[in-house]
């Protein structure tokens, strides 16, 4: 990709033309098209699974956006799903807000949580910061346990009362009850997150985030404020994580419980999935998330392995970490499609097509403001 700077700026139309894409990108498009068709042709139980997988993949992407890019590992990303989910669920349960509106409450609350978690990251780095993220959801769970009347404690909101499910929306059959509706809602949330994250990480901001991961001091030396970018990453990750958490809870696949949204296991599964797919790529995280969820569901249903699934996953992850730390998707792309060639060297250091287009648009909108 580094060699494609000769034609200068390409338009959105040229950029998004499938014929001009690399093979793996075309494959990705085919996969997304397949996701549109699958819920209609598969049995209902599989529509549920697809929905669950897409929600989970969104969780994984929101983790990857912060941790894969800035290198500040969050061990408690369940906090965002939990805060988003519970805020939305409680708004519906205690204040009778319609689920479709309550989702926004959840998103706002998760965004605020992103701000709160982001601030320590400005002061703490590496393991110290990871400790804070690890501990925060555990504290929140304890707080939940302390107010069972409001939160239902360990049981989740089911323990307090009945939370409404999503009703019909335009042409979509109620995602709160219909498997097909749930699958399309999940697909919508997934695609929204995918587009936002891919756009941001492939823009200049994404370069800065990667730069922070590699060498924060160097980024600061170029006159950019790493703290600002990290905070932005946390808030955006929180917003989308919260959106996924809230919509998951109101949909037919999920509910608002500690074990589904907030537990340490969730935060860890998210990390495991992102590592399997490929950290710091978003697309790898999306693939890893969906793959992990489906494989887990299948394995749980197999007689003997069902008991062992987490052990098997933990061991597989350990091996992946050790032998293939870059993850499945980047490794496959490098070996199968790109032939392992790094591309021609270019004088300006090169830039991707998406970046060139974005830069063009920024110029049109009045230049870069940084």
């Amino acid at each position: 990709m580094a060699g494609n700077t000769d034609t200068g700026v390409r338009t959105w139309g040229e950029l998004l033309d499938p014929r001009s894409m690399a093979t793996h990108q075309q494959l990705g498009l085919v996969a997304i098209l397949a996701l549109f068709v699958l819920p209609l042709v598969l049995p209902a139980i599989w529509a549920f699974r697809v929905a669950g997988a897409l929600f989970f993949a969104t969780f994984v992407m929101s983790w990857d956006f912060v941790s894969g890019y800035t290198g500040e590992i969050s061990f408690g990303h369940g906090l965002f799903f939990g805060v988003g989910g519970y805020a939305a669920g409680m708004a519906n349960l205690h204040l009778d807000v319609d689920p479709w509106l309550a989702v926004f409450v959840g998103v706002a609350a998760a965004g605020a949580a992103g701000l709160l978690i982001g601030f320590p990251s400005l002061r703490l780095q590496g393991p110290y910061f990871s400790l804070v993220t690890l501990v925060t959801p555990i504290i929140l769970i304890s707080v939940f346990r302390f107010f069972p009347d409001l939160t239902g404690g360990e049981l989740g909101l089911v323990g307090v009362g009945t939370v409404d499910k999503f009703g019909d929306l335009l042409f979509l059959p109620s995602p709160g009850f219909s498997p097909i509706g749930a699958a399309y809602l999940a697909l919508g949330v997934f695609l929204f997150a995918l587009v936002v994250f891919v756009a941001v990480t492939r823009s200049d901001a994404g370069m800065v985030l990667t730069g922070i991961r590699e060498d924060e001091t160097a980024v600061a030396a170029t006159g950019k404020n790493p703290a600002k970018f990290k905070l932005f990453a946390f808030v955006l990750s929180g917003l989308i994580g919260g959106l996924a958490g809230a919509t998951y809870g109101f949909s037919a696949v999920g509910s608002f419980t500690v074990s589904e949204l907030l537990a340490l296991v969730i935060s860890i599964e998210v990390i495991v999935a992102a590592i399997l797919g490929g950290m710091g790529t978003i697309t790898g995280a999306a693939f890893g998330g969906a793959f992990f969820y489906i494989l887990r569901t299948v394995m749980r249903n197999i007689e003997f392995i069902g008991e062992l699934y987490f052990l098997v996953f933990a061991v597989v992850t350990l091996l992946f970490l050790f032998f293939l730390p870059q993850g499945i998707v980047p490794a496959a792309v490098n070996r199968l499609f790109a032939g392992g060639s790094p591309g021609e060297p270019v004088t300006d250091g090169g830039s991707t097509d998406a970046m060139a287009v974005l830069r063009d648009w920024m110029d049109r909108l009045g230049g870069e403001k940084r």
Partner: protein
Amino acid sequence: MVDVNAVNLATNVLLLGALYSLVAIGFTLIFGVGGVLNLAHGAVLSIGAYSAVAVVRATGSVPLAAVAAAAGAGLFSLAFYKGMIRYARESPVLVLILTLVMGLVIEQVVLVAFGGQALAVPSLLAGQTEVAGQRLSNNRVFVFALSWLLIGGLFYFVNRTKTGQAILATSMSEKGAALVGIEADRVYTYTWILAGVLAGLAGLFLASFQTATPLMGRTPLLLSFSIVVIGGLGSIRGSVIGAYLISFLDQVTVTLVSTRLAGVSALVVLVLVLLIKPEGLFGRELAEH
């Protein structure tokens, strides 16, 4: 009633403080010297406890079980460092996740091998003693004494022996230590073994007056975070002081407020200390790794 509670509280704090010190010292050693935040440290407690369980089942001998706890945990720790961590050391992020996943693997292996139910480990010493009008099992007194013996021995080892001083030197400056001919890899190996043995014994002790469960190491690990952060990551003396502060805080919260808050006060303290005074209350500067 109030007096009895106070005595009970005091003995709990004394005993748990000593046990948490053992766990936290190993944790802080590995971090202070090697710069590795070992999230598998809690699971090493399970290794110790379950090695003891297995040996007791096979031989019925409690002293042998104690040896097995120390040896099993120490060997695992050694193998983990030599086989994995050593190769991944350049990437702190990778190491962090490796230790986390390794901890999970151990928990799951124990779960599969021994089942999820709580298992009893025989007391190290039978019988009861009366202290200040409160009947105490000899086991608890013995565990307390043994823990302090270990802590004392460690202080002596680190401050008075050549190897211990090499460990201290490496924790202060790896380059400086290398200049005077200390081989870093060997020092790391020592710290991993030491930390493993201490955690294995702590696991056995904890199991002997509570029970052994596959996830038994999680609470001590979480408390260790708070302890070493309060004491200053990398400081042994700070760990002991921190362990007592945290066990006091935790026991007081559990006794006076609610058992539902077990462990939470420590975590809140952890977050506050990290945000306000990240170098710890007593400790040295943040390690430079």
